[in-house]
């Protein structure tokens, strides 16, 4: 009788362990964890981008160095995001910002360079729009899980 009770207890524990293992095995994370450095890069590039975009009413040729510095920082942030495992969604978001033919930051810089300078109304609207675009990247980062599976 005691042996039977002991076997029953072992069997229940084994079942629980199997159940945990099944959840753990099928429970691989699908998205990168929150990354403090990525968050800092995103917020600092946003601030820098908005300062440079606001210069769009002035001659592009006077701001070549500002644009070059901004592009370098933006590409550093993109490369950092790209290097984080399971960070495909954030990487795709950066690719939209970096598309020179798109309607985001690099598209704005291309248009500015091509036209020399841009209208005051356009620059004001674009500044708000690019700010909102960066917010989508930042808000996703802020809401990523803070601890890994089982943590």
């Amino acid at each position, binding site marked *: 009788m005691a042996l039977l009770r002991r076997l029953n207890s072992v069997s*229940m524990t084994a079942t629980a362990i199997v159940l945990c293992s099944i959840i753990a095995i099928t429970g691989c994370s699908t*998205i990168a964890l929150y990354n403090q450095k990525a968050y800092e890069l995103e917020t600092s590039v946003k601030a820098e981008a908005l300062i440079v975009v606001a210069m769009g009413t002035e001659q592009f040729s006077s701001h070549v160095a500002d644009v070059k510095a901004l592009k370098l920082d933006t590409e550093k942030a993109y490369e950092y995001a790209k290097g984080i495992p399971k960070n495909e969604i954030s990487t795709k978001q950066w690719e939209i910002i970096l598309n020179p033919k798109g*309607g985001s930051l690099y*598209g704005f810089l291309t*248009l500015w360079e091509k036209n020399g300078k*841009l209208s005051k109304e356009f620059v004001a*609207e674009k500044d708000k729009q690019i700010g909102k675009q960066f917010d989508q990247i930042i808000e*996703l980062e802020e809401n990523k*899980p803070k*601890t890994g599976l089982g943590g």
Partner: protein
Amino acid sequence: MASYDDFLKNFETAAEALIKKDYGDFASQAKSDVDSFMQGAKTDLQNWTKMLVQGGVSKEEFESLVQGDSDLLELHMLKQSGLAAARADTLKNDLINLTVSTAINTFLP
């Protein structure tokens, strides 16, 4: 000695509460977020059209603004998809912790 049925009963009750906590109003929040985004895009378009007609922005600039909102929508949808994945990961993590703690509390009180 607790039975396997006790374990399942304890686990089910706690898992139900957990799913409500992790997922709860996520779907309705996401829908309201998209609705509010679309409303903002509609207002933007009305303002930019006015600016174009009044000569405040050039045709090329107007196109860039419209394309910018399309990019913003894509960024927004990517964010929503990332948030859903993050919720799913949180739920999985919580379920693992719950399974372990329920097993320990049931079988090794």
